[in-house]
């Protein structure tokens, strides 16, 4: 429905629905912290950004560019074949290792933080630098450029 709806705002709303279902799956998988972060980051931050840009650009249904039917058909064929291949390959793989006994503590903040700040400390710091670069880049890009127009 994200892909099919003509109105971009409806696409965003369906995407929020999809994100909430994925967050529910995280809860089922005993990844409580991940579910929380997922809702906060995606439904809270990213979707607000999308809605803001769509409203800023004032996109309507009549301005929506539409592909020719040939391209749509080719895209549907390609996507469907990709799904078929992925499912056929992955469903047949035999996962050798048996499931461990359930450890419900693994998704809690305490354990995740312990792993994050000991084993993955360097990638964590690099991610902060990435955020800094992205922030500066976004501000510079969105700034009014005096040379153009």
């Amino acid at each position, binding site marked *: 429905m994200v892909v099919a709806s003509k109105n971009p705002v409806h696409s965003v709303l369906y995407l929020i629905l999809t994100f909430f279902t994925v967050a529910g799956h995280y809860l089922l998988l005993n990844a409580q912290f991940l579910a929380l972060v997922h809702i906060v980051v995606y439904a809270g931050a990213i979707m607000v950004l*999308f809605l803001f840009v769509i409203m800023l650009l004032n996109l309507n249904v009549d301005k929506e560019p539409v592909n020719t039917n040939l391209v749509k058909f080719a895209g549907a064929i390609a996507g469907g074949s990709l799904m078929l291949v*992925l499912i056929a390959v992955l469903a047949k793989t035999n996962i050798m290792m048996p499931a461990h006994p359930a450890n419900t503590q693994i998704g809690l903040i305490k354990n995740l933080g312990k792993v994050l700040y000991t084993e993955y400390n360097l990638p964590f710091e690099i991610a902060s630098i990435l955020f800094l670069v992205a922030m500066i*880049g976004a501000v510079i890009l969105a700034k009014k450029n005096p040379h153009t127009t």
Partner: protein
Amino acid sequence: MSNIFSVVPIQHYIILSAILFSIGVLGVLTRRNAIIIFMSVEIMLNSVNLLLAAFSTYHNDAAGQIFVFFIMAVAAAEVAVGLAIIVMIYRNINTIDINELNKLKG
């Protein structure tokens, strides 16, 4: 909470992720609105995140969830920069139809 994999086998999560990923690919291939293409990319990232979390729980290993965390961080940065680029493009050529973006120099 008991182990989810005694109820739902891991194969179902693999299939769900494959379907989500294919929907994302379909969106990228068939739409021309740049914002909707971005949303489709988000769907693809989410499918991969879901699979990582599923296998992390399956193997009782927290590293998978850490990777999901990093992917979320990168996705957030990517969306911020990408939407800034889209706003810039819209200011310059007054459309976000990707078929109009066939020139490197406007």
